[in-house]
């Protein structure tokens, strides 16, 4: 069964540093998403991406965040100048009907 692949599985970074989270969506899916989930809390929408551009973004997705699809297969989330409160699990998903989620990247900002 096709999978969404996310790397790295864990990332520890110092406050103020930039991180890039990577995702390889399912190849024939057209919609891509980034979500985050703070431990024990709900899944929060960050941004959706369709036809190589952002289709919708949440209030959380401010200038600190950016997404790219640099080579037609990878889908990246860049977080600049990380803060302690950015520590969370970040999930990528691609969609045909329902979302297929990757296994997530656990980001810890210290």
């Amino acid at each position, binding site marked *: 069964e096709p999978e969404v692949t996310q790397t790295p599985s864990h990332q520890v970074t110092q406050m103020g540093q930039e991180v890039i989270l990577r995702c390889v969506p399912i190849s024939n899916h057209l919609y891509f998403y980034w979500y985050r989930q703070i431990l024990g809390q709900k*899944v929060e929408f960050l941004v959706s991406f369709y036809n190589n551009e952002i289709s919708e973004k949440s209030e959380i997705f401010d200038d600190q965040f950016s997404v790219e699809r640099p080579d037609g297969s990878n889908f990246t989330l860049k977080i600049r100048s990380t803060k302690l409160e950015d520590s969370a699990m970040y999930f990528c998903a691609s969609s045909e009907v329902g979302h297929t989620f990757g296994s997530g990247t656990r980001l810890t900002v210290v």
Partner: protein
Amino acid sequence: GQQVMQIPQYQHVQEGEDFTTYCNSSTTLSNIQWYKQRPGGHPVFLIQLVKSGEVKKQKRLTFQFGEAKKNSSLHITATQTTDVGTYFCAGTYNFNKFYFGSGTKLNVKP
């Protein structure tokens, strides 16, 4: 703002008992999806409901979408220990942005 409310937050049942979780939106949804997340795992898509009053079944799971497309429920008949996890609904108003409920954590005692 737009959001999807979900209750209860926790449910502890004895194996064999039934379980229901409810989601409610203040405005009409385009569709609603249901996901299951096992501890330490990622959300896994269960089903999508699109039509007013729609009812769908998957073995012991019954999903309903209200007539006004503002509420939805997931009912599990005769729970098993394999049903343990957190069940999330995710509603959308425009297919680009999904609002996840806060989840219902189900614990099943053998």
